[in-house]
């Protein structure tokens, strides 16, 4: 049997049984041991008594997606088994179950390992609470998960709980490991090679990465309102932002949250709020003010299934339209996306930079899938990260300040309260260059053009897309946000199969990067656009710009689940016939 060292492990059991912390421990220690990691988890929609699921994919090679199938499934109880057994790889799939809890039926071709997890913890270790660590020990014994790194992390994690606890947990690890090496006859092909990655990595969720990016970008004020799945950004910053000298406050609702940001922005302070669909719907009016008054803010939308309250714990990419068009009237804004956890970090910094440079609202779209799962990425080199601050008015008392000066770039130098000679009233009314309300057609013409000119300047200055694959492919896949991951893996497979395919991943969604996408589409006759939504929101923009040049094939899923690489491969095969 050929050894297989790209492994997807899923753990599931009662929520609150430590499923998630088990996964977190494996993930961080594996990353530290130089492995690539990619996780996925779901929480019960109901508060308690539901099922929790954690999945981690481990590999020596760069990972872009969750994988197609589960290779190893550890089901703590019958319910977990019933829910997820269908996702286990029919070829060589391994089921591990707690033989103290239940007995699954035997199934032809499936490899089952029965382990008395409960009694090992209770009797051998002497503490039921160590069941999760026993479990990890089993995985080490079975699949060569990095023992030393796990051991170190256990010590690090439990030290503040006292020596006894550390000891117990190390014992649990060893008991699990030993049980499996001794009592279980290994029938599966999986074994994790030693990691090769040498860079030191951080292991965080997408939401954490967004919070981190905000701190790096210089955010000093966060105003928020809890909402699943965006609350994790709030939680991260609640803990960390004060350490970086920033303030954070829970407001009475989402309108107040974004309003608070606009206030801070007027004060010259970089500011963020994160929310999900329902919150974005509520923020539209304030968003328009931010655009009209040219007060930069960053708004993160961790998208979930809509419409309305919809599927609050599931993932979707259906807020793009709302992000671009949600506010009445027409004011410039920038909408960008983050496809991976490291993009959550870097694109948040970009979002702040764009907001500051162009003095407008920037919306960063990510989704529940990316926001909630962990990835490892190399510790960023802060010195290489460019941070942009607003073009400041060089204040001279008695000079006549034109807050909204009609410049070539559309960007007008701004003053902050405290600046002498920079006094002006920010306004949501149409206004003159001196910020006075004005409704006459001539002034209107100038100011609308000035504001939108910023977007032209922006598109000239920024790189909008990542293009990979074959330069001269006739079929391209265009994917934004978390969908890109499955596509990266898919084109790798397709290319390995000798297919010609190009992948276009736009980072900038609005203003629509017509020129760059146009270039990327040169020579392409068909472009497939997979999106986790019903109507093909980005596809419509592509059609408006390019349907006279290339056939646009929409590929929409709206089941609350991320794309899997094989779906993209299948679609490509279908389209290329």
């Amino acid at each position: 049997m050929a050894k297989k060292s790209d492994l997807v492990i899923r753990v599931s059991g009662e929520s609150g049984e430590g499923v998630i912390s088990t996964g977190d421990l494996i993930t961080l220690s594996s990353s530290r041991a130089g492995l690539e990691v990619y996780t996925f988890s779901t929480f019960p929609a109901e508060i308690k008594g539901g099922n929790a699921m954690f999945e981690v994919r481990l590999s020596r090679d760069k990972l872009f997606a969750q994988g197609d199938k589960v290779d190893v499934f550890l089901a703590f109880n019958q319910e977990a088994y019933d829910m997820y057994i269908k996702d286990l790889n029919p070829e060589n799939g391994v089921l591990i179950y707690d033989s103290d809890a239940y007995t699954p039926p035997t199934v032809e071709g499936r490899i089952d390992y029965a382990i008395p997890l409960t009694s090992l913890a209770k009797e051998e270790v002497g503490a039921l609470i160590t069941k999760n660590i026993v479990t990890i020990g089993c995985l080490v014994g079975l699949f060569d998960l990095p023992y030393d790194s796990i051991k170190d992390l256990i010590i690090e994690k439990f030290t503040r709980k006292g020596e006894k606890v550390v000891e117990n947990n190390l014992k649990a690890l060893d008991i699990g490991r030993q049980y499996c090496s001794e009592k279980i006859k290994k029938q599966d092909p999986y074994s994790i090679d030693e990691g090769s990655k040498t860079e030191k990595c951080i292991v965080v969720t997408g939401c954490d990465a967004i919070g981190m990016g905000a701190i790096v970008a210089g955010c000093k004020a966060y105003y928020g309102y809890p909402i699943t799945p965006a609350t994790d950004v709030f939680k991260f910053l609640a803990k960390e932002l004060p350490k970086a000298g920033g303030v954070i406050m829970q407001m009475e609702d989402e309108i107040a949250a974004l309003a608070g940001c606009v206030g801070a922005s007027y004060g010259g302070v970089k500011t963020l709020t994160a929310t999900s669909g329902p919150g974005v719907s509520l923020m539209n009016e304030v968003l328009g003010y931010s655009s009209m008054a040219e007060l930069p803010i960053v708004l993160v939308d961790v998208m979930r299934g809509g419409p309305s309250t919809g599927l609050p714990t599931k993932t979707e990419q259906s807020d793009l339209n709302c992000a671009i068009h949600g506010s009445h009237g027409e004011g410039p804004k920038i909408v960008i996306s983050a496809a991976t956890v490291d993009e959550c970090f870097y694109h948040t910094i970009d979002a702040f930079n764009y907001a500051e440079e162009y003095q407008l609202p920037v919306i960063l779209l990510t989704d529940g899938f990316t926001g909630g799962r962990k990835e490892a990425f190399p510790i960023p080199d802060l010195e290489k990260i460019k941070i942009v601050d607003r073009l400041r008015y060089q204040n001279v008392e008695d000079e006549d300040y034109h807050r909204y000066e009609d410049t070539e770039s559309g960007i007008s130098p701004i003053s902050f309260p405290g600046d002498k000679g920079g006094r002006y009233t920010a306004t949501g009314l149409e206004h003159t260059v001196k910020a006075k309300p004005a409704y006459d057609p001539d002034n209107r013409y100038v100011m609308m053009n000035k504001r939108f000119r910023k977007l032209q300047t922006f598109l000239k200055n920024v790189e909008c897309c990542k293009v990979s694959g074959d330069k001269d492919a006739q079929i391209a896949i265009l994917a934004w946000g978390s969908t890109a991951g499955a596509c990266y893996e898919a084109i790798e497979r397709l290319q390995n199969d000798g297919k010609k395919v190009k992948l276009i991943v736009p980072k900038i969604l609005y203003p629509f990067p017509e020129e760059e996408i146009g270039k990327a589409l040169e020579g392409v006759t068909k472009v497939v656009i997979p999106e986790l939504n019903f109507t093909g929101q980005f596809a419509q923009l592509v059609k408006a710009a390019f349907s006279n040049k290339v056939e646009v094939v929409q590929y929409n899923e709206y089941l609350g689940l991320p794309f899997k690489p094989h779906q993209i491969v299948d679609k490509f095969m279908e389209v290329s016939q």
Partner: protein
Amino acid sequence: MSEYTMKSYKSETKVTWCPGCGDFGILNALYQAFAEMGWDPNNTVVVSGIGCSSRAPYFFDTYGMHTLHGRALPIATGLKLARQDLNVVVLGGDGDAYSIGGGHFLHACRKNINLTYIVMDNNIYGLTKGQASPTSDTGFETNTTPYGTVEKPLNPVGMALSVGASFVGRTFAGKIKEMKPMFVEAFKHKGFSYIDVLSPCVTFNKENTFKFYKSVSEPIGEDHDCKDYMKALVAAHEPDCMKLGVFLNQDLPVTDEGIAGQTKSLAMVGNDAEITKSIIESYS
């Protein structure tokens, strides 16, 4: 004596209110109160919502924000918390404050945010040409209530006290001399200071006139102890008469200061890059 005079705060923008509007008197008293505080116009921000009264920021030569209907308070809250060094004064109308902005008003009071909120209360929607506001009297006929408003009016002063504002007052645009000192007292107060100013809309409201307000109001009285919360509460809810004066002026914990204080005590030592680095590395 401050180096500033009324003129220091007056902008060149023409005041566009109707002749006779109560808001003029408030505006003047505000100029005077700013001068008495000796506030640097460069460190002062006047924030408003939308309405006739909310056009006020244009008439100040300070920093200012003319924002959205009902949203002045959360915007000012966000500004104040992020920029504790600024003097922040919020102005607006009764519709702005108590109707669409009612939820924000409640929370600004409760959080006791360190800013001053002055509501120009004309018991009507002025800018949209005459509809009932939450403080309009029952029976009031407007173009959207041609057969008379059915609701009973809100008692905003009572509400502010009940939900936690630490400085609460009411005055009347006809009382030119009383306004300025009350504004100054509010500005000096640490925490959320709120004053409802009865301010006739001479164009659309033919009921709540200068004369009317004079007849239904009376001073809260010299002997009122504005440190006594329960007395303030009772005075504010007295059924038959609108009291004028400062109901409450208490020192209570201020949320924006508290939060800024938490940040101060948690902030790590070092420059931004060092701090950021150590936060990031704690996740590796």
